[in-house]
Structure formats: structure tokens, C-alpha cells
């Protein structure tokens, strides 16, 4: 059956090429669009995903990770005293203006973390490629990402700039820490961050990060913290999902990318369906002859399904490398296309289902084909 299917497909090479092109474009669109979406979502939750905290405690009603309402420092002590909490750490996060060398201003996302000597913060900057992150404890020290050089007009460790009217010195550089909001992320010590944000009052905090004591019941600790007034506690994966969901739903980015991906599937479906159907019509008398001579419907259907599967396999084989090429091209524009093995597997499955459904019209045609029709002229 495979041999017959392959030969029928290859007999008209132009039509075959169109079918493979249709599937390839479809596969590439699905991979790139969904990969871009996952890339954006990875960026949106990258700070949370990189943290070593077991729980994130914030104010109830916080919809967005980035736009969290601050509370005062007493909350830290309340959380730290909850049974099962081994360690609690403050984080202050907000947007402030940074001064550019040319005199302009740029909004940056400040992440103020605790820099206790001898203890790594649960939200310490990672992927450090230059400088000394230990110096973050120094007043005015900041860590920025090198992919934001162009925006911040910073070109080296030791560069001095001004954030919220306060002197700031770059003490280390990271690679690949970017914000979904497009504002550069600036790590700094909690005290420095507070100096940028006097409007938040005395000793503001937006999150308390929690490390659980060994053997502590996570659900029980979470419930105890949530019993405190106005507080909500999420595990790191829960916090990550909340953030991704917020950006995906509130900005419509999810719908946008998935709509394009679905359009890609529809394009592939229509192209393959049309090619298979026209091929079936072309060989209708031959299929009828086989049925007249006793071939079962299932045997003829297998030939058509085999053609669909060949189209799916070759279309995927061409479309997947195209997507890899697109990822490389987009990397230059600082766009992350997250092509994971799972995405490849799911896209392969979608391609198979798409081609199988595209073959349905052809299958119905041969199932309804009256073998007696071969006698009619």
C-alpha cells in the first residue's frame, strides 16, 4: 500500500511538491507561532522560574507579578513566624525611570533583593557573564542584562548611570534575563531599590519569598500564610502559571499566536485535502476497478491514508528545519522561539491528524464509489 501510495503521489511531481509545501508551511507556522508564544511566556515568568523559593507571598488581589501592590515590612515577620517556614526573604519590585547617557529617560523594572553576606538570595541574578554579583550589596550597585545594552546604552561593567535620580553603577552583567514588559530588568539590593521608590513609604516589600523547613507540609504552610490578613501564597510553579496566564489572556498574545497557528493548520488542511482529492478523482476508475475485482473498501482507504501520512511525514521533515531556521533568524531580533521536544512531538501529532482529516473527503469519495460505475463508459 505504501508503495502504491508513494508512486501515486510522486507521479505528478508538481502536485506532490505543492502538497509538501502546504504541509511544510503549516508545520513551520505552528512551530514558530507556538514557539514564539512559549518564548514570550518563558520570558514573562523567567524571574519566577529561576527563583529557588518554595512559596511566593504577595498581597491578595495582585493580578500581575510585575504590578504588585507593596505592603509593609511587618508582613515579613508574620510570614517568617509561620510554622514550617525555614527562611523568608523580601523582594521589592517596581518600575522607575533610568537616565540615559544622551539625557533621555527609560523605564526599567527594578528588582530589589536581599543581599545577606554568605547567603545566596532566592532571587539572585543568574547567568552572570561578567563582573561580580557579590558587589550587589554595595549601595547603588546594579546588575543588568547584556541584551539590554542597546536600550540602556550601557557597554561595560563599571558604567555609571542614574536611576530615579540616584547614582547607579553596573557591577555585573547577565545574559538572557529579559522582561515580558520590554523594560530592562535591573537587579539591585533591597535598600537601593527602596531609595528609588520613596513614594512607597517606609520599608516597602512587594513579595516575601519562603523556603520551607525540611519535611514541612507545603499545603499546610500555604494555608497558614493565607490565613494572615490580605496575603496570598503560591508555589513557584503556581506563581509562574498565574503570570503566564495574566500576560497571555490580558494582552491577547495567546489568542494572537494560536490564531495564526490554527490558520497554518487550516492552510495545510486545505492544500493537502485539495491535492489528495484531485488525486483521488484522477484515479477514480482505477480504484473502482480494484473494488470491482474484490478489493475491500478498507484496502483502498489505506492507500489514501498512506498518501496522507507520506505528505505529513515529508511536510514535517521539511517544515521543522524551516522553523529552526526561523528561530535562528529571530534570535537576531531578540525574539525567543522556544522549540521544545514536546512542541515538536505535538506538532507532529497535529500534522498527522491534519493530513488524516484532509484525506476524509477523498475517503468518503472512494467509500461511496460504486464499483459498477467502471462499466459506465
Amino acid at each position, binding site marked *: 500500500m505504501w508503495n502504491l501510495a508513494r*508512486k501515486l503521489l510522486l*507521479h505528478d511531481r508538481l502536485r506532490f511538491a505543492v502538497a509538501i509545501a502546504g504541509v511544510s508551511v503549516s508545520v513551520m507556522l505552528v512551530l514558530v507561532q507556538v514557539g514564539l508564544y512559549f518564548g514570550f511566556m518563558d520570558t514573562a515568568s523567567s524571574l519566577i522560574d529561576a527563583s529557588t523559593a518554595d512559596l511566593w507571598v504577595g498581597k491578595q488581589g495582585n493580578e500581575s507579578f510585575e504590578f504588585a501592590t507593596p505592603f509593609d515590612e511587618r508582613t515579613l515577620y508574620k510570614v517568617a513566624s509561620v510554622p514550617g517556614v525555614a527562611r523568608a526573604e523580601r523582594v521589592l519590585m517596581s518600575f522607575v525611570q533610568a537616565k540615559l547617557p544622551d539625557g533621555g529617560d527609560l523605564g526599567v523594572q527594578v528588582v530589589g533583593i536581599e543581599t545577606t553576606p554568605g547567603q545566596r538570595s532566592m532571587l539572585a541574578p543568574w547567568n552572570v557573564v561578567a563582573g561580580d554579583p557579590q558587589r550587589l550589596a554595595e549601595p547603588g550597585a546594579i546588575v543588568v542584562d547584556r541584551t539590554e545594552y542597546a536600550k540602556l546604552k550601557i557597554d561595560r561593567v563599571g558604567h555609571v548611570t542614574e536611576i530615579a535620580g540616584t547614582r547607579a553603577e553596573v557591577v555585573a552583567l547577565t545574559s538572557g534575563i529579559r522582561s515580558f514588559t520590554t523594560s530592562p530588568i535591573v537587579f539591585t539590593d533591597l535598600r537601593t531599590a527602596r531609595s528609588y521608590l520613596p513614594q512607597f513609604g517606609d520599608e516597602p516589600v512587594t513579595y516575601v519569598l519562603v523556603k520551607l523547613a525540611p519535611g514541612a507540609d507545603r499545603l499546610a504552610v500555604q494555608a497558614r500564610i493565607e490565613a494572615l490578613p490580605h496575603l496570598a501564597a503560591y508555589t513557584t510553579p503556581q506563581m509562574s502559571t498565574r503570570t503566564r496566564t495574566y500576560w497571555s489572556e490580558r494582552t491577547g498574545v495567546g489568542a494572537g499566536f494560536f490564531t495564526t497557528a490554527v490558520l497554518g493548520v487550516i492552510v495545510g488542511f486545505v492544500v493537502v485535502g485539495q491535492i489528495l482529492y484531485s488525486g483521488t478523482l484522477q*484515479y477514480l476508475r*482505477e480504484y473502482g476497478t*480494484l473494488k*470491482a*475485482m474484490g*478489493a475491500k473498501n478498507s484496502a483502498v482507504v489505506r492507500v489514501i491514508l498512506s498518501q496522507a501520512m507520506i505528505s505529513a511525514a515529508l511536510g514535517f521533515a521539511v517544515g521543522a528545519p524551516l522553523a529552526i531556521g526561523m528561530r535562528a533568524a529571530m534570535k537576531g531580533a531578540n525574539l525567543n522561539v522556544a522549540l521544545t521536544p514536546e512542541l515538536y512531538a505535538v506538532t507532529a501529532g497535529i500534522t498527522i491528524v491534519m493530513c488524516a482529516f484532509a484525506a476524509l473527503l477523498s475517503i468518503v469519495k472512494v467509500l461511496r464509489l460504486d464499483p459498477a460505475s467502471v*462499466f459506465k463508459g
Partner: protein
Amino acid sequence: MPAALAIQETVPSPARHAVIARVAGVAKTYGSGENAVAALTGATLDIRAGEVTLIEGPSGSGKTTLISILGLLLTPTAGEVWLEGRNVAGLGERELPGLRARNFGFVFQGFNLFPALSALENVAIAIRMKNPRARGAEAEARRLLDHVGLGSRAHHLPADLSGGQKQRVAIARALGGNPPILIGDEPTAALDTKTALSVMELLRELATTERRAVVVVTHDPRLERFADRVVRVEDGRIEAITTPNATPAT
């Protein structure tokens, strides 16, 4: 006898002239009520091993309906179709493909060969389609092509074959699965006279040497010399059955 037919194959060997299929009192009406059209009425015909039966008649007379019912491609409105010792007229679509695969090979005016497949592949695919568990389909296809004198053209595509060669490939395909009955729907109509006669000669030899029943619909009276019987169909009725090669009584 053509050299190609010198190879004898193992086929069911019912006694010559034994009845292996019968249509009895079959009728076929298309449509219903005022729009009903009787395509065939009260047709009775025995199909005998080793015989060539020609079915002649003007266009629209019911010839195709008759062979369609005989070949189990069409269900009669009334009457019986006897095959393998039982009336199969009322059988459903689940059983008919198997019956057709075991009993019939078809040859058409337009050959109906897959243009993308070689002669060998066209025959082999039919063998596999008839019986998906068939082993050695390719070797069997090669043997059948040798049998019809086309062994040397086995790897040619239909486009590279003449009309007569294509029809021989179609006959080899019809022989796949070793059916006792070959049904031809004007198999010589698209061929020149010489080629048509050689194809008919081949069918005649298949009947004579292998005791297959060959049933051919034709408009061409020149083919009568190959026939044991000629069935004349007019206005949906079998008007006459004659034996053109019968030795006149003295």
C-alpha cells in the same frame, strides 16, 4: 496457440461446459413509480467453464446491466444469481467483495491501469488488494505477465505500452487471484482490428486451455468466431442465444 500460453497454470478445473454461474429470471429496474425504467427483465443465462460467451446488443439494451449483475456489482431487483452453489443475489456489501475476488476478473475498454505503476506493479497491486495476505504477489504478477506474453515489458509504465499491450496487462491483472470467470466490457473497442483479434484470441485460449468462463460484451460481430455462444440482448430482454461455431447438422 500463442507461445505465451504454453505455460499452464493451476486453475480450478471444472468439467468443460459445467455451469459455474447462473442468472435466473433477473430483472433490474432503475427509479420508481412513473420514473421507473426497466433495464433488464427476466434474464436467464448459464455461464459455463471453458466457454466464451459474447453478449451483443445495441446501446442501452441492458448488456452492461446483465454483466454487472452477473459480476455481483449490481443487485438485481428480482431474480437469482447462483455462484459457488448458492443464490448470492441478496448478499450484502460485507460478503460481496470476497465473492468477487474469488470468482471474477474484469477487463475494460479503457484498461483502467494506474499510470504511475509499471505493468508488473499494476498486476501485483490487484493481487494484494484481492487478498492482503497474499504472499509472493510480485512473482505471481510476473508469471501472469509472462502468461499473456508481456514478461519483457513488465517494468514499463502503461504510457510506454501499446493499446494491445495495455489490454494484455489488464487481462493479466484480471487473472490475479486465479478467478474462474473473466468478464470483459468491450475489451477490444479501443483497439485496431489486428490487436483486437489477438486480444480476443488470448481470451479464447484462456477459456479453452484453462477452462475459464469468459463473458465479453461487444458491438463487434467479427468476434463471434471466438465465441461458443452469442447472447443477443434487446430492450432489456435476452432475445436469443446462438452457438455460432456449432457444427451444422447434416
